[in-house]
């Protein structure tokens, strides 16, 4: 399944295996952990178990930031 996602301001297309895609599959495809990243589906924060469909507006937020501490 092809899913379009917005990640750090950039749009990208993910090609995911299987008929049913969950939010956690998107995080995995981007190599992100649920400890610091989450998915926003159609402007709603969703759990990792949420089902994602190709038409959904998906934004992935990676909270990790670095630099000066």
């Amino acid at each position, binding site marked *: 399944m092809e899913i379009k996602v917005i990640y750090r301001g950039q749009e990208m297309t993910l090609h995911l295996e299987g008929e049913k895609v969950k939010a956690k599959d998107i995080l995995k495809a981007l190599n992100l*952990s*649920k*400890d610091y990243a989450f998915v926003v589906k159609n402007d709603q*924060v969703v759990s990792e178990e949420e089902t994602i469909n190709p038409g959904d507006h998906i934004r992935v937020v990676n*909270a990790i*930031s*670095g*630099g000066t501490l």
Partner: protein
Amino acid sequence: MRKCVRCGKKAQIYLYSHRLSLCSEHYLEWFENRVERTIKEFNMFTKEEKILVAVSGGKDSLSLWHTLIKLGYQADGFYINLGIGDYSQKSLQKAKNFADKYQLTLHTLDLSKEIASIPDLKAYDSRPTCSLCGSVKRYYMNKYAKEKGYAVLATGHNLDDESAVLFANALSWNVEYLRRQYPVLPEDDGFVRKVKPLCKISEKESALYAVLAGIDYIEEECPFSEGATSIEYKLYLSQLEDKSPGTKLRFYSEFLRKLYPLLKESPRGNLQKCEVCGEPSINSLCNVCRLKLKLSSHKEKI
């Protein structure tokens, strides 16, 4: 389907480290209560004091500012333009937009007018860019807060920042740094009080708050932070957290509870006044004046 523990509606958020399911409305309430409790736990400040919030345009500082205002504190913002090209332009705009939206006071300072931009300063300092930038920012944040009469300087350092620093300092048992790692550094000769009200809020919790509260923050990273060791340490700790939720909070909280009391005798170490500007410094010449000296000698050579 998980349900919000407060209202029974569908939970949008599950906080593994707290074993807590919450809907968006009750997540915002939980976050604000947690910040309020942290402020009170460490006696950070009162509602009568003027607070200057160091604002970068990112999720942590804007979430902090938003929360302090909602909780009824007197908080103004302070943005330092580091002169990092497009990144600084965008982040300044985010900070300004936020201040305009909530009709708040935002002070700004242009580093290139005070000394030089971070990309220009890099040529005169051998430290990693993030260390250089941090020391220059700390200097001007403290100086500006004093000059404008703010009792308190609040920064958006979160639990991930604090646990990554603690990890780094523990790896080399850097006692002097560990001694200063407390969420409140009291006012002292030359210093305003410095506080970190988000010290028990994880990076993800802070981003969730920003998204759910409708805060428009800069998501892209500073171009100089790529490959920073702080990010690597955060990723190591995140692996532990994934396997055992609550590890970061335990690591940091137990340091504060058990080890810090043994170290705290002299929180700021032995400081003196800089011979040139009078600001607190470890050496006779502070970092910023040393940089200024290098800059001026370079210009003379040209």
